[in-house]
């Protein structure tokens, strides 16, 4: 017990640093993937066939392969095959590569949710806008978008909570997120070794954070309850 009390602050400090990486990756991914997903959704719905086939193939590849493999390829491929290491050095390099992989991966998942959301809106909404002399983009931003958001909040919540936990995959390219930080005490770090509880303890962080995310998304869902 005494030993535990001694180790606890050291472990928590180390986990906090790791969790900061986790959070950073989480928010950067959301910030990038939410708009990119919309662009991909429009691409796959395009009436220009080559573009829609192309985006559909990309989405198929990204959704059809494990994110872990994508991380490995994105990080190691340039230096290994193109003979040009593009990610720079240090932890920043690993973070940048992780962010790129995560943004692409999640944008593809988001795009399919968006597509479902857009296509579920009755065609009458667009026609009503057209008849009132609105442009396509006015119709999208003033009429369709909010209805789409309302419809996609529940499936998006699912993805976002998955993302919270998926960030741990980035440790395959040695991004030192919270699980990495927890595992370090198993191998030995800062004079603490052979301790599994820090790794188990990371679950508390995930649990609290996904709880907060769930609450916020629930609030958004409620906020959009004013119309049907």
């Amino acid at each position: 017990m005494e030993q535990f009390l001694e180790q606890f602050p050291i472990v928590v400090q180390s986990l906090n640093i790791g969790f900061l990486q986790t959070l950073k990756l989480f928010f950067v991914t959301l910030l990038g993937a939410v708009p990119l997903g919309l662009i991909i959704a429009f691409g796959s719905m395009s009436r220009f066939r080559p573009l829609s086939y192309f985006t559909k193939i990309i989405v198929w590849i990204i959704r059809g392969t494990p994110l872990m493999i994508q991380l490995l390829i994105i990080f190691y491929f340039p230096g290994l095959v193109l003979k040009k290491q593009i990610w720079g050095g240090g932890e920043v390099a690993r973070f940048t590569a992780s962010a790129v992989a995560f943004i692409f991966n999640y944008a593809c998942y988001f795009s399919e949710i968006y597509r479902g959301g857009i296509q579920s809106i009755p065609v009458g909404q667009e026609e009503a806008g057209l008849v009132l002399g609105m442009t396509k983009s006015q119709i999208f931003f003033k009429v369709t978008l909010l209805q789409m958001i309302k419809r996609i909040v529940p499936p998006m919540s699912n993805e976002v909570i998955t993302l919270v936990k998926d960030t741990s995959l980035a440790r395959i390219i040695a991004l030192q997120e919270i699980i990495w930080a927890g595992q370090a005490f198993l191998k030995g770090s800062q004079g603490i070794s052979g301790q599994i509880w820090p790794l188990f303890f990371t679950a508390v962080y995930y649990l609290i954070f996904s709880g907060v995310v769930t609450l916020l998304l629930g609030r958004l869902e409620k906020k959009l309850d004013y119309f049907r």
Partner: protein
Amino acid sequence: MAILEVEHLSKTFERTEVLKDINFSLEKGQVVSLIGSSGSGKTTCLRCLNFLERPDTGIIRVNGETLFDADDPVTTRESAIRKKRLHFGLVFQSFNLFPQYTALGNVMLASELLAKERPDYKENKKAIHEEIEQKAQVLLEQMGLEDRMNNYPHQLSGGQCQRVAIARALALKPDILCFDEPTSALDPELTGEVLKVIRELAEQRTTMIIVTHEMAFARDVSNHVIFMDDGRILEEGTPEEVFGHPRELRTQQFLGHYAQ
């Protein structure tokens, strides 16, 4: 001069000819009813006028100006069509109100977006907004919805929704207001309030084209009646002529169903 002239309009979906050489015209202040069985092409005709469908052949003229000529590519361009739509208003069978806006918001939205294109918008933003809001309020009052302005569509009855939709179409001051079976989606007891509003509009000499199955109403409110069958105009004339003394057998059969 006729406010609307339609010549040789035709439209084919896949391999089905939905409209076959439609010709008719409409005078300012007139009310035309389009009647006929389902699938006779009434709704498609109305959608062509609003450029929701592109006719394969034919000409659409409003106040002598050719809005659409299938043979003249200049008039069929997508970019030009948006403004041309403003000559027409359309009230849908299923209302198609925007759910995230209040009744007032639905009526104001298009006007506000159009106002942004005005050169003096930036300077007079506030005044323009107030003017639009005021007009919308007047329209909703006219529809008998003065106490419903800030309700969202899902808080309104079907009849109220349809009246909001009518106000929304009127807000842009169309030359011709089109109705696509405006009461078909309503409970029978709610049709009355919508028909009453349309009747009032007719009394104010609003130019209207009404696709309807309410034969008594059509006979009562319209100046001109067109009977469509299988994509063609089979018979037209005053309500007295078409309802009172139908010449064609098909018209008689059709009206016979309603008489029972």
